[in-house]
């Protein structure tokens, strides 16, 4: 039961984020408040859900079970620039949300910027390219680390090998 609860929270959170995305984009005049309000809305269901007693609306009443699959929905909202759409794709596997993809479809450039800020892409399988084949000035990741740490790590590796 506990697991089922958690799954539904995740879905709720995702739904809330989507709803708020549409909602706060309407108030496009104040760009600065967008991210905060969306996240507050996204977090609230997660916090509210554990003791949800039905006061939070039908979705929080009971942990619903969702069939696995990919769900896509397009929502419309009015922005100062006119009607805008945003498409959300959710992937459920084993009852849990494994991917959320928000596709910005705004035609108004301002709305597109706001939608894009929230949108995430999913690369199914990242493919590394040889450093020599990519034109870069610097790298970020595992290039350097504490010298003392690395020395200790080598010592352990040597010990393990011996």
């Amino acid at each position, binding site marked *: 039961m506990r697991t089922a609860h958690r799954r539904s929270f995740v879905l709720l959170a995702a739904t809330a984020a989507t709803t708020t995305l549409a909602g706060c984009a309407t108030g496009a005049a104040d760009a600065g408040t967008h991210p905060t309000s969306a996240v507050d809305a996204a977090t609230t269901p997660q916090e509210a859900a554990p003791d949800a007693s039905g006061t939070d609306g039908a979705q929080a009443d009971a942990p619903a079970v969702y069939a696995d699959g990919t769900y896509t929905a397009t929502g419309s909202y009015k922005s100062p620039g006119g009607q805008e759409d945003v498409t959300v794709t959710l992937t459920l596997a084993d009852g849990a949300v494994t991917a959320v993809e928000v596709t910005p479809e705004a035609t108004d450039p301002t709305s597109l910027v706001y939608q*894009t800020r929230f949108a995430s*892409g999913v690369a199914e399988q*990242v*493919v590394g390219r040889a*450093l020599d084949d990519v034109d870069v000035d610097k*790298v*970020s990741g595992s290039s350097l680390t504490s010298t003392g740490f690395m020395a200790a790590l080598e010592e352990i590796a040597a010990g*393990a090998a011996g």
Partner: protein
Amino acid sequence: MPRAETAFEAIGTGWRIDTPEPLTDATLERVLAVTEAYDLVWSRFRTDSVVARIARDGGTHTLPAHATDLLDLYDVLDARTAGAMTPLVGAGLERLGYDAAYRLQPSGPPLPAPRGVVTRTGSTVTAARPVLLDVGAAGKGQLVDLVASELRACGVGEYVVDAGGDMVHRGPDAVRVGLQVPGDATRVLGVVELRDAALCGSAVDRRAWGDGLHHVLDARTGLPTRDVVATWVVAGSAMVADGLATALFLADPDVLQGVAEHTYVQLHADGHARYALGLPGEVFS
């Protein structure tokens, strides 16, 4: 940018500063003084640091002004990650073997971070009992910012300050930064065009030791995280980028969106990546 390169070692990491003109000795001295002062407050690997004193005696300590920004960020990320991220993971890291002696052997079962031990007003912290703080999740980023700020104070307006892959850029020409494949320094999985912004990354391979042990802990359990293997964040400041890069090991990107304006890449153990479409760059797939 015509390049002059200054390299040095500080807080256990190799640093590189690229500037149009070589740094003067006076400027470099001031930069090194900034890093030394930071280390003297936050290092849990030296016995004379403020953090070491708090670990020994607890009590009330007034830290430098920068501590307010750093600990404010930690408070926000603590809330967003539902308690998974806190500077109170010091003892948990030591327990797993990430200690001053680099023992790298667990000395007991995982240790969840204590809660409610430290209270704070601005940069004044009070530890009700001895407690080991670790600001490794955002501290290096903040030091990158402080070094950059010192450069500007010294009249240096264009630079890349790079502390082992955590960096901030300022100037008209973007730098192209490759995102390294965890565990393979010869390959990159994406490129970021960095201009007037900071990029920080975190990967579990760089500070990993046997059997799934590494330096990103879930404070609630004291256990290393599992699903995410590397993250990168582009943000206005390196402190925020660094903190969010760690938070992305512990929380869904959507939950972190409102903390500060940023874009990100989150690489998972199964090889798939999630990233902000607004990323100033590309993820290869």
